[in-house]
């Protein structure tokens, strides 16, 4: 066996831990059947496995429950958000959304008066937006107008009157909720085991 390449320490351990693929395992087995040196190294480590396995548990010296419970601090009940609960909530929310979408054609809204306010030209809107940058300029004339025009329109699907100011408010509200939601979700992400 002088010229045979011996099994490495890592291969030997991987073999014992069952981490090798089938062809490598077979080649290691073949080598072990021929090489007394590697076989004795294997026996040595296998002996450690057996000795560790032979260790029995010590019996409980006493019931530690009363001691542990006596030192248990108070704790606020955590919100229960299990996978099952999350799935159920998702299904219910999805169903309600589907019902709402299906109900749209059957909803009869009162006929609305035509909106009188004309929709301004896009150039005018841009000019107003550009004017905003002078909002904090100290030498503005006193009658300088900074307000954006409020555009009113009907939503195409459900024919509800809405204005740009409502839209901006809704978007800002959604953004705020998103930020708050992320803060709640991402706080205390540290593992308890560290």
């Amino acid at each position, binding site marked *: 066996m002088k010229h045979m390449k011996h099994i490495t320490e890592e291969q030997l351990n991987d073999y014992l831990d069952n981490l090798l693929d089938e062809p490598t395992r077979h080649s290691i087995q073949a080598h072990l059947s021929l090489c007394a040196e590697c076989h004795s190294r294997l026996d040595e480590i296998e002996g450690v496995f057996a000795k560790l396995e032979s*260790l029995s548990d010590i019996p409980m010296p006493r019931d530690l429950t009363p001691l542990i419970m006596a030192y248990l601090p108070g704790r606020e009940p955590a919100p229960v958000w299990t996978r099952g609960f999350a799935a159920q909530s998702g299904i219910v929310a999805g169903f309600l959304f589907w019902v709402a979408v299906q109900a749209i054609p059957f909803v009869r809204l009162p006929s609305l008066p035509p909106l009188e306010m004309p929709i301004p030209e896009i150039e005018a809107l841009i000019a107003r937006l550009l004017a905003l940058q002078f909002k904090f300029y100290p030498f503005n004339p006193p009658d300088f107008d900074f307000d954006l025009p409020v555009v009113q329109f009907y939503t195409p699907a459900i024919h509800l009157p809405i204005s740009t100011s409502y839209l901006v408010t809704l978007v800002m509200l959604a953004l705020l909720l998103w930020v708050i939601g992320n803060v709640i979700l991402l706080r205390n992400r540290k593992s*308890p085991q560290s």
Partner: protein
Amino acid sequence: MASSHERGLALRVKQGDREAFAEIVRANQRVVLNVAYRLLGNVRDAEDATQEAFLRAWQFFDKFDIERPINPWLKQITVNVCLNRIQVDKPTISLDEDLYPPKDPRPSPEAHTTDRLRQERIRSEILSLPPRYRVVIELRHFQELRYEEIAHTLKRPLSDIKSDLFRARKMLAERLKDIA
């Protein structure tokens, strides 16, 4: 996957039910104590570590995924508690010889003594290993974690875990050569 009973208990603990937690302590204290005993080597320290591990578990129970079994989670908390203690304290190899003899009667007193001495010798050799080797032996051989899980638990590279485990086994093989 946790059993439905265990899941129910965990759910109650999450809602702050102390009685449910007491039931978890009763059911798992022996396993936790044994993990601590193997790593610390004496019953008093193991009891303290057990207590600390359960207190930590209670404190962080809202982070526990109730779909998973509790026992491995508790064992990993215990390993971390013991690791902190080993790193802070001096290494101690003081096995309690007669403090807690096994309850089961053996066929003969001689056989009992021989087996007890053998077990004490194995335990003391594990305890004489450097802490990082001791911990990987505990996680691999007693908790049967995979290499990747050990690396994740100890927050160390996989290659380090493998080499520590190989060396730990080699050292034990050398030191326990004279034991059958």
